[in-house]
């Protein structure tokens, strides 16, 4: 008779801990999502509704700010620029970084570890200290206000990031996989592209997404290296926030902020399913 009792007790305990976990999840989600929710809400408010006390949750929504600032802040062009730059630097970094990470993980070359560490340490230099030299180099090369300039500039911090993430990913794969492929008729490159890369797709994809998000929201280099032609969305937000003549326009700020977030959300939703199945596929070893 003791078994049913203890099993009931057990079930109660797990359901309590389950409930606690769900509540914890909700709390964390609220903590993270509320500012975004507030931003989106504010972007649809009229100027008068923004600073009321207590804050208004119900109001007549308007697209006024959106329409006005799409024009004034040149949002369409910036959106296109940001997409080009984030995609370009993301792809460049994933290709170069993954191959460098593979080399660091697998190929025995004297000094490789030191070299890898140096690249990582170079990230210790504050970006602000690099921005001006980069600007001077870009100007000498005639590369100011071009997409390629930002793509290259972002790659300087994305490549080390990808390299180190992918290095540990590759280290977690058994070496015998490539050795097997090499005995089965592949060269080292063949083994990399036919065996290792397909297995690593989930890892590569999530690293690519994180890299693209980092590039998407980057402000400093974009501010320094671009002008009108290749300028990105974060620059527009900074411009609105730092408008000392008219004061910060909160409606505009939140509207442009929302425009920045929406493509990321859509993108995340699009790749999410793929990412999760990919992760399950790849989660096999041996």
């Amino acid at each position, binding site marked *: 008779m003791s078994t049913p009792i203890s099993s009931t007790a057990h079930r109660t305990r797990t359901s309590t801990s389950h409930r606690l976990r769900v509540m914890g999840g909700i709390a964390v989600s609220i903590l993270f999502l509320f500012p975004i929710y507030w931003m989106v809400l504010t972007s649809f408010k009229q100027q008068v509704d923004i600073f009321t006390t207590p804050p208004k949750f119900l109001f007549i929504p308007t697209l006024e700010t959106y329409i006005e600032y799409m024009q004034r802040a040149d949002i369409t062009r910036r959106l296109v620029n940001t997409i080009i730059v984030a995609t370009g630097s993301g792809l460049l970094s994933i290709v170069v970084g993954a191959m460098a990470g593979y080399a660091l993980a697998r190929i025995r070359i004297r000094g490789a570890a030191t070299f890898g560490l140096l690249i990582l340490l170079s990230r210790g230099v504050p970006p602000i200290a690099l921005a001006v030299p980069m600007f001077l180099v870009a100007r000498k090369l005639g590369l100011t206000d071009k997409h390629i300039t930002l793509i290259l500039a972002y790659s300087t911090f994305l490549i080390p990031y990808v390299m180190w993430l992918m290095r540990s990913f590759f280290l977690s794969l*058994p070496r*015998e*996989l490539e*050795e*097997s*492929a*090499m*005995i*089965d*008729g*592949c*060269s080292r490159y*063949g083994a990399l592209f036919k*065996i290792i890369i*397909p*297995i690593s797709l989930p890892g590569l994809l999530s690293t690519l997404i994180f890299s693209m998000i980092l590039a998407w929201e980057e402000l400093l280099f974009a501010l320094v290296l671009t002008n009108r032609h290749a300028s990105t969305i974060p620059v527009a937000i900074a411009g609105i926030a730092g408008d000392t003549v008219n004061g910060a326009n909160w409606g505009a700020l939140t509207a442009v902020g929302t425009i920045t977030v929406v493509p990321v959300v859509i993108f995340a939703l699009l790749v999410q399913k793929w990412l999760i199945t990919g992760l399950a*596929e*790849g*989660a*096999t*070893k*041996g």
Partner: protein
Amino acid sequence: MSTVQIRDARKSYGAVEVLHGVSLDIEDGEFVALVGPSGCGKSTLLRMIAGLEDITGGDILIGDRVVNHIAPKDRDIAMVFQNYALYPHKNVRDNMGFALRQRRIRKAEIEQRVNNTAQILGLENLLDRKPRQLSGGQRQRVAMGRAIVRDPNVFLFDEPLSNLDAKLRVQMRSEIKELHQRLKTTTIYVTHDQIEAMTLADRVVVMNGGVVEQEGSPLDLYDNPASLFVAAFIGSPPMNFLEGDLVGGTNLVLADSTALPLPIGDPKGRSRVTVGIRPEHFTIADSGWPATVSVVEPTGSETQITARLAGHIVRILIRGRTATKPGETIHLAIAPEYVHLFDAAPVPQLAELEDVA
């Protein structure tokens, strides 16, 4: 099928030499087991044959071709790894067909060869599964299949059974032996399990500390171990060893001055020796070395007795059953041909290598 010759092969990692000149001649179709304790260089040697490690010195020939600088893919060898290294994103069919596709063999032929091999190994129903959907034993079979389907010159195995449980290991062991008898492909098999080496191989190569300690047929190694190391390594339960001075030609005087008469003297005339006697070579007699029985373990067909002889533990294995009881004193006799004499030295500690199966 092919011969393999290893001529004074050396391997260094940086300044450390781990293989100190290994030479081996492997005949066409022969099954050779490389056996030895952990770290003795078995895997390193095998990987050098596969082309996965550079050869620091010496030559390796497959057939009559020196392969020192030939890439693994051009050596026409197949290898089975301890962790199987199945491609996790490919199903069993594609795992087995991968090497054939790399060589641009026709689809229909690949299909046929994969199916044949699957049938030999009983994998027909698993061809569409991914490796993660297989049990350990099935994965092992797929790894074997991936090697067999290629019909290579040489099979290389690196402890292919050590991830299986004891029962499956014994079963796969006889399957591997049967496969070899059927395919007759030259095979080099690395293991640290001497039983596996003895039961599988035509020839056993015992390695120790980066050199070949002794090579020979399994029973030859068992009957005529050339060194204390091989004597201790081969055989289960292991050989008994007693170290002492030879006095008057045939008296072995132990450290506590117990004198044990030997049936023979030392032809080399050493004054201090280590005597080795296999457990099954003792007979219980009316006179002989007196020992006190401490444990009697009958298994039906044979009985293992553990006894104390002048403070040393000795193991005795007798066929059939015995009425001997713990606490009794028995007398142990040895025929002269079963006495092994070695230079006096501490017995290598091989406890961790003893077969646990």
